[in-house]
């Protein structure tokens, strides 16, 4: 799982409604791998307003990935920024591990890079 996807997912257990805790999900015991990918600046720039930057910052810090604290004024012209963003959200893969909800504690497992976000029947 890439971090762009992680940035779009929240805990969706019934009654877990605190927006500050449902998101971002906290990684636990992750096996991280970087896989080089072709950079697409157009895509990166278009996704910027759709990302939750503070969540991405928090998550990358926890995983030891460095991205700028703030989005620059002209991201489209900032090669260094785009490269850091590309690496963080598109090249870093969580291969194994879990995502834990800081609200209800639900653990979403990631196996072979595929997160299982199915809920148990008491959670829907």
């Amino acid at each position, binding site marked *: 799982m890439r971090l762009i996807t992680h940035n779009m997912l929240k805990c969706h257990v019934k009654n877990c409604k605190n927006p500050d805790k449902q998101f971002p999900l906290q990684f636990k015991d992750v096996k991280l791998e970087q896989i080089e990918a072709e950079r697409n600046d157009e895509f990166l720039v278009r996704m910027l307003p759709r990302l939750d930057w503070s969540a991405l910052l928090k998550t990358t810090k926890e995983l030891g990935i460095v991205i700028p604290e703030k989005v620059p004024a002209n991201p489209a012209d900032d090669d260094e920024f785009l490269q850091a963003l590309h690496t963080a959200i598109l090249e870093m893969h969580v291969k194994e591990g879990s995502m834990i909800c800081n609200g209800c504690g639900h653990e979403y497992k990631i196996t072979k890079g595929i997160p299982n976000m199915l809920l148990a*029947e*008491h959670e829907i």
Partner: protein
Amino acid sequence: MPKFIVYFAHWHEDFRLAELEALTLLEDVVVEYDRASYTSKSPFLIVEIESALQAAKLVRRGILVRSIVEYWGSGSTYDELFAEVRQKPEKWTEYKDSSFKFTVDGFGKSLSQEEKISTIESFSFLGFEGPIRMKNPSAEFLVCEEYGESSKPLSLEKPRWIWFGRVVGRGSRDLIDKFDVKKRKYLGNTTMDAELSLIMANQALARSGSLVYDPFVGTGSFLMTCSHFGACSMGSDIDGRQIRGTAGFRRGVDGINANLKQYQLQDRVLDTVVFDVCHNPWRDDALFDAIVTDPPYGVRAGAKRLGRKNGTIPERSLKVVDGKESHKRTDYYPPTIPYEMSDVVNDLLEFAAEKLVVGGRLVYWLPTVANEYEPEDIPAHPALRLVANSEQPFGGWSRRLITMQKVALIDADQRMSEQDSLARDPAHKNFRDRYFSKFKRGLEDNSVID
């Protein structure tokens, strides 16, 4: 503006204009044509485009477009056609010394080699002196004799119309072979055929910079075709076995990943996630440029959503087994209940209205009982405008490829317009039951739907 002939594939006729319209948006090419001049019975359409370069650009992604031809002349006889071509000699002199090739096609009749050669020779008045080259000629000319679609095409002695011009661009029909499901390392028993998957990517306006999502991803066909055209894509499915490839056909090859490797799409097919879209974990302001999907009709692969039939058996997820709550065990799989077709579609529209960017597109398949179908059966939503509705008929039933565009942001109180106004059920409601009661007997194998 100069005239061109769009030479369509004669197949999936109801999808051709819709695709052409999508291509004009994708390629930002201004095309003018008389809609009334289009007929599903002919593979030709006269259009006006600013230049040959623009014409080539327009069709380069076309799946139902064979080629686009600069119009030089046409007529009900060769004499008529030649007379028109002779009016503009300035067109031909440009190719006097070019290498060239002539192709002679018959629509509704196969022409013999002798007929083709004598036709080519009849164009000798053009005075082309360059070499004939079958591969990569600098100019390619097309003559097509249109006899018309008929069950007895050879009964016509003379063509209804003859077309002639210079081929300036081609569609992408070669991709149908590239993505042929038989050639994929991994497939499932409900995998959509390559041609329709590619057409869907065009309907969705999938391109570089866009993010596409399939909430019933199955074996990932649409992620592949959309990402082939440059989009980044994501998918989810309630059934992780389809994604991982641990059940069904060709198991054990690493599922969707095997195909992504084969087609080198790992950079753009971003992720596949296991969840039920009825209970989805997308963040509130997560947004997609397109949602492209083949919702489960529940005929062959039964449509399911999470849940337990009311009042039958109590919940088991919290029961402790061997010291562990059962839902925390690795082999836990939550119970599912059937998901009725009209509910699937209504939920899908609601989801799309919420999760698409304004201008984003929803492209999905809707099965309908053919003789009960009325255009107002197509589910509507105040935030979504119907762009195209193309039918693939199978006799008693059809499936329709529906393309909708999000035209407005939705307010919390602006929910889906329920189809209460319909005095009857839409022709897709309870499709599974009606399918089995009406059509199951006597169906050809190729018309069985998933």
